[in-house]
């Protein structure tokens, strides 16, 4: 949808969005049984047992690691951790739910009243987190048809019982962009904590959104719809942009919004109404009789807090403080733990006393040329063929005038492809910047002779003619001349011609 259509919605209405995010937790065994969670490459139904299948007479036992992970997330989201928590049964019938109920948490979740900060247009905005609670994932349905075209479904319960953390936000987001930023920030926190693989495309991280419109100044919330099936950050933003526009059309034609679940259809770029499973009241939650309460001693929580790794926001603030990075760069570099480490390692390995200067160089190379190479080859920075010290040596060679920036970019790209160290390429091929005045004068002479029009332009006072001629000299030197050395020699030559 075009941005101007969204602007039209926002002129008349305030968009109100809240998100429910589910993430699988990276435990080795399931939430309430010992089945192995690493089922991705295995046959259907090879990771199931009497407990996760809900056979009569079995008893679930809580996986402590999943609870620890939940507290880590709660603390990272500035939540309160109540001293008493319990599990409840959420009852409904669906083939992907082998027990006929899902063990979840209803009125006494592990984490409540938190918040998360997003950066919107350079300003920090706080989004409330209502609660985070632990539950179990369902199985997976595959749809099929027989030779007569009659549809049926196949069920794989390998996923049933995987620990699932649900994080519910307050309806604090005011645009689809804010919803996407919240989702990206939350993913960054979860992945940094090492509790989630964060893969939206594979469904290990999922997002449902509640969205409604209301007239500006209205304090009562409008009727909301719930949007599902958004499998990427981009889909979150696009689906909500579409839905905001759809709701506005309904309202401005005098219609009313029906509270319903709608699915995002990526290929068509629309949301469509989905069949309702049950009404919320009909889940008939009741306390899980097979699981005792959990008393959360304060030293348990403090023990978790003391083991927490540095989080993106704290790291961003540290990068601004210690390296004087602008907030945008700091946010970008701090968001991913591996990228942050690479940046810091590069900065540390660079020569010179000016930390801010070194950090700026490292940030530019890591976010610029290196990121481009990594993205193009779909490589994680942890598998980068060029180590941080090697990148630092390359940057140092530019700073010291041994090679030009242009040469460095070429060497980086070649070293990236061949897995050699940049230094080895420089040594072997004897690459060095040309600062030899005689050689540059020859190139300048050639550029001036072969480009009389540019020379004439210069004499008429057109400043950009100089840039053009410097470019010609660079080209003739195959990038080995340094522009700041070329410029005075070129201007001297041009001025001499004018006399």
């Amino acid at each position, binding site marked *: 949808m075009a941005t101007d259509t969204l602007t039209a919605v926002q002129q008349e209405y305030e968009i109100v969005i809240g998100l429910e995010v589910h993430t699988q937790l990276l*435990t*080795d*065994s399931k939430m309430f049984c*010992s*089945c*192995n*969670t*690493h089922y991705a490459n295995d*046959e*259907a*139904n*090879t*990771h*199931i*047992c*009497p407990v996760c*299948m809900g056979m009569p007479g079995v008893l679930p*036992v*809580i*996986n*402590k*690691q*999943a*609870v620890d992970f939940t507290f880590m997330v709660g603390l990272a989201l500035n939540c309160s951790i109540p001293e*008493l928590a*319990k599990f409840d049964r959420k*009852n409904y*019938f*669906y*083939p992907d739910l082998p027990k006929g109920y899902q063990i979840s948490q209803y009125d006494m979740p592990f984490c409540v009243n938190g918040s998360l900060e997003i950066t919107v247009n350079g300003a920090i905005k706080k989004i409330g987190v209502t609660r985070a609670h632990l539950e179990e994932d369902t199985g997976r*349905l*595959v*749809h*099929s048809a027989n030779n007569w075209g*009659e*549809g*049926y*479904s*196949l*069920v*794989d*319960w390998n996923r049933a019982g995987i620990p699932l953390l649900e994080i519910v936000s307050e309806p604090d987001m005011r645009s689809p962009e804010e919803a996407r930023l919240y989702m990206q920030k939350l993913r960054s926190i979860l992945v940094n904590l090492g509790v989630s693989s964060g893969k939206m495309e594979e469904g290990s991280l999922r997002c449902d959104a509640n969205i409604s419109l209301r007239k500006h100044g209205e304090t009562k919330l409008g009727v909301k719809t719930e949007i599902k099936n958004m499998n990427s950050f981009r889909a979150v933003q696009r689906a909500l942009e579409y839905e905001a526009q759809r709701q506005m059309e309904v309202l401005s034609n005098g219609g009313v919004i029906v509270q319903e679940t709608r*699915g995002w259809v990526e290929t068509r770029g629309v949301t469509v109404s989905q*069949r309702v499973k*049950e009404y919320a009241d*009909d889940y*008939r939650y009741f*306390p899980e*009789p097979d*699981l*005792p*309460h*959990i*008393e959360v001693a304060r030293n348990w929580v403090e023990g978790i807090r003391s083991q927490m790794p540095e989080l993106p926001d704290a790291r961003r603030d540290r990068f601004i403080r210690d390296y004087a990075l602008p907030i945008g760069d700091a946010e970008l570099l701090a968001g991913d733990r591996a990228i942050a480490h690479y940046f810091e390692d590069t900065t540390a390995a660079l020569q010179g006393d000016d930390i801010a200067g070194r950090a700026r160089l490292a940030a530019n190379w890591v976010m610029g040329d290196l990121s481009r190479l990594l993205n193009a080859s779909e490589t994680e920075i942890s598998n980068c063929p060029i180590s941080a010290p090697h990148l630092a040596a390359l940057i140092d060679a530019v700073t010291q005038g041994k090679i030009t920036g242009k040469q460095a970019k070429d060497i980086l790209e070649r070293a990236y492809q061949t897995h050699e160290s940049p230094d080895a390429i420089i040594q072997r091929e004897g690459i060095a910047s040309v600062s030899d005045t005689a050689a540059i004068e020859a190139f300048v002479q050639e550029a001036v002779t072969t480009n009389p029009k540019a020379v004439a332009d210069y004499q008429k006072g057109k400043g950009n003619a100089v840039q053009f001629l410097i470019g010609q000299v660079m080209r003739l030197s195959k990038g080995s001349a340094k522009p700041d050395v070329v410029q005075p020699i070129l201007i001297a030559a041009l001025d001499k011609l004018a006399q």
Partner: protein
Amino acid sequence: MELTRDEVMRIAQLARIKLTEEEVTSLASQLSNILGHIAAMQEVDTSGVPISASILPVTNVMREDAAEPSLPIDEALANTPEREDNFARVKAVLE
């Protein structure tokens, strides 16, 4: 409080139970009686009484996160009415 016929039918539908007309009538009165008992209990002042959703004398029963082998596939799917390869086969379900 008296449950209506529709309310009984709705509860039966949620529990996937088929009821005859006679059963609906008799269940309406039985369930109404049960709700009456609950309503009477709810009149008791329980402020200051600790929650008793669990009557178990234990808390914090947990296990370490260690994976163990699951069931062999034929045992795991032994109760499945219809099977196709390694999957359980069910009526078409729309996502």
